[in-house]
């Protein structure tokens, strides 16, 4: 009889104990994974918000006048401020080039028919999060100061045989005016830009072509619009969520008139908009986590201890046969681990089926149960978060926690058993 065979007999022939431990670990694993799934949605939602708008404040004048450059200068020097940017964008019509649209035949993209491109105008393109979070410059330079110039995507450039030094012509669809702009840089998208989300069939869907983003300066856009854009608003970027509070306090202490200036925390405002939905999911995640932790801490511990109580006689026999105590503890570790790991592994595909099949329905039930269904604002970020694929690392973490509880319970129970002499263990069994 091999060692493995002996352990297998302990598992397979003590069916009642093995099955009870298996079922409990399996159910707890399901709870843990579903809890992680909900937690993941909330985390994804916040991550998408931050990826899109960053940790940013918006300072704007209520009277529509321009913010004086010295105020922007002053804000730039506040501790925690990464930089200030003035941003605007509009859809424009390509004139001497064609928009590049991903090949939808490969089933990766589902893009509305569009020949429009989006022109982003910034005082500092590097701070524009559509650029900063999703793209990297591969050639040339970023638009800066008052220089006229635009940077375009590599795919768009390749499709139209465009390069640095060429000029593109774009048309304002509202006024019909055209503008010729030199290309000063080429960028490459490293991740899907903001106007994209995971489709229900698992593919990436775009609101517009991911290759259609053009970046230029504010004066370039003003030239296209044939009017000045009043710089009545500035986006202030902070390094993290916490720094925004300090920056807000510092701006308020600058003595700007509250009648003329308003300060908006864009990050909190956006996260706050999705609060009712994310709070409901977050609560569900917390409840499931609590149940999982409580049940695993007490019931799982109890079941493992009871499982081990059935081992009193085994332990005494093994000692009389000459097995060392640490070898016996190791045997029990292997047996409980084998049952638990099997349950945990089996719970993964089952959970995947449940989440893929009923994930959205579960979310709906949560919304109904929390009475928030009518009041929920499920924005694009939440929609994208709800459609996020499973993040297995988070789930494996919750499973490892369960395994730790099983190991701790096995250790406690084993030590408790082994402190008794065989004669006592025989009497106790």
């Amino acid at each position, binding site marked *: *009889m*091999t*060692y493995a065979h*002996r352990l297998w*007999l*302990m598992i397979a*022939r*003590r069916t009642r104990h093995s099955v009870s431990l298996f079922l409990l670990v399996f159910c707890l694993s399901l709870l843990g994974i579903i809890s992680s799934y909900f937690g993941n949605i909330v985390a994804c939602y916040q991550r998408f918000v931050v990826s899109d708008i960053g940790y940013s404040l918006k300072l704007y004048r209520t009277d529509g006048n321009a913010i004086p450059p010295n105020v922007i200068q002053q804000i730039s020097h506040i501790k925690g401020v990464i930089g200030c940017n003035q941003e605007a964008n509009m859809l424009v019509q390509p004139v001497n080039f064609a928009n590049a649209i991903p090949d939808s035949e490969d089933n990766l993209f589902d893009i509305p028919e569009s020949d429009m491109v989006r022109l982003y105008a910034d005082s500092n393109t590097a701070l524009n999060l559509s650029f900063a979070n999703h793209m990297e410059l591969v050639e040339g330079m970023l638009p800066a100061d008052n220089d006229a110039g635009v940077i375009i995507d590599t795919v768009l450039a390749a499709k139209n045989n465009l390069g640095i030094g060429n000029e593109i012509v774009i048309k304002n669809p509202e006024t019909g005016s055209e503008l010729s702009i030199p290309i000063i840089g080429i960028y490459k998208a490293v991740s899907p830009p903001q106007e994209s989300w995971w489709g229900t069939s698992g593919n990436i869907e775009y609101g517009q072509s991911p290759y259609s983003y053009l970046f230029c300066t504010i004066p370039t856009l003003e030239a296209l619009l044939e009017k000045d854009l009043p710089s009545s608003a500035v986006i202030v970027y902070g390094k993290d969520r916490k720094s925004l509070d300090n920056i807000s306090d510092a701006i308020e202490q600058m003595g700007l008139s509250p009648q003329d200036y308003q300060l908006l925390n864009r990050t909190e405002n956006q996260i706050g908009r999705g609060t009712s939905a994310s709070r409901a999911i977050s609560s569900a995640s917390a409840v499931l986590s609590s149940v999982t932790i409580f049940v695993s801490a007490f019931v799982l511990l109890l079941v493992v201890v009871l499982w081990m109580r059935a081992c009193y*006689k*085994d332990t*005494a*026999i*093994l*000692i*009389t*046969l*000459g*097995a*060392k105590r640490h070898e016996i503890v190791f045997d029990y570790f292997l047996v409980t681990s084998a049952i638990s790991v099997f349950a945990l592994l089996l719970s993964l595909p089952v959970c995947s089926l449940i989440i893929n099949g009923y994930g959205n329905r579960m979310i709906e039930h949560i919304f109904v149960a929390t009475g928030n269904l009518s009041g929920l604002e499920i924005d694009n970020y939440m929609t994208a978060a709800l459609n996020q694929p499973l993040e297995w690392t988070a789930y494996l973490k919750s499973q490892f926690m369960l395994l730790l509880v099983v190991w701790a319970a096995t250790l406690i129970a084993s030590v408790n058993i082994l402190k008794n*002499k*065989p*004669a006592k263990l*025989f009497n106790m069994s």
Partner: protein
Amino acid sequence: MISMNNVCFSYRQKRRNRDILVDLSMQFAPGKVYAIYGPSGVGKTTCLSVLGGLDTPTKGSIEIDGTDIKTIGYSQLRKQFVSFVFQDYHLFPYMTAIENVVVAASIANKSKGHEAKEQATALLSSLGLDSDTIRRPISQISGGQQQRTAIARALIKNPTYILADEPTGNLDKENAQVIMGILVNLAHKQNKCIIIATHSDLVCAHADVTMKMEDGKLFVGGE
């Protein structure tokens, strides 16, 4: 030869030390059956536990062929030199008879796999268990068959010393006779040293040496 040298064993009970074995010195030689008898609670089982290294004497030493069992190591002692047979058999209830025997060989690293299985089958067969019985779960065989399985388990390691605690206590007279016959045979034909703690006159009648345990001491009753 296994010898007890001035062995004392006591434990605390109700804030008092209770002496079980008092300055006990005795030698047990292979080839003989020893029966230790005396009233319940006198310390017969403790005496076997101390001999088998399941309990540690508070004073004195146990030696096997002149080597202290502490030097041998308690685990090694039970793997190599000493086997136990109990009144309640104490077999793994979820295993078959043959599995119970093979597992002992595997723990003692005596033999593994097919060889162990063959040895176990031969042993069980020599103790009167047929091939059908040895493949049945322990719960489905009789007390006498279980005790024979326990003896086979004790023998598979080929130990010199077999410590049996009331081995016939749960058996009827006929089965008790058979088991005692087996144990006597083991001592006389295979040169094993069988030490039995018992209440039974039948066991004492089969023993080569009977010892009465009284006040923590052993008194040899005759050879």
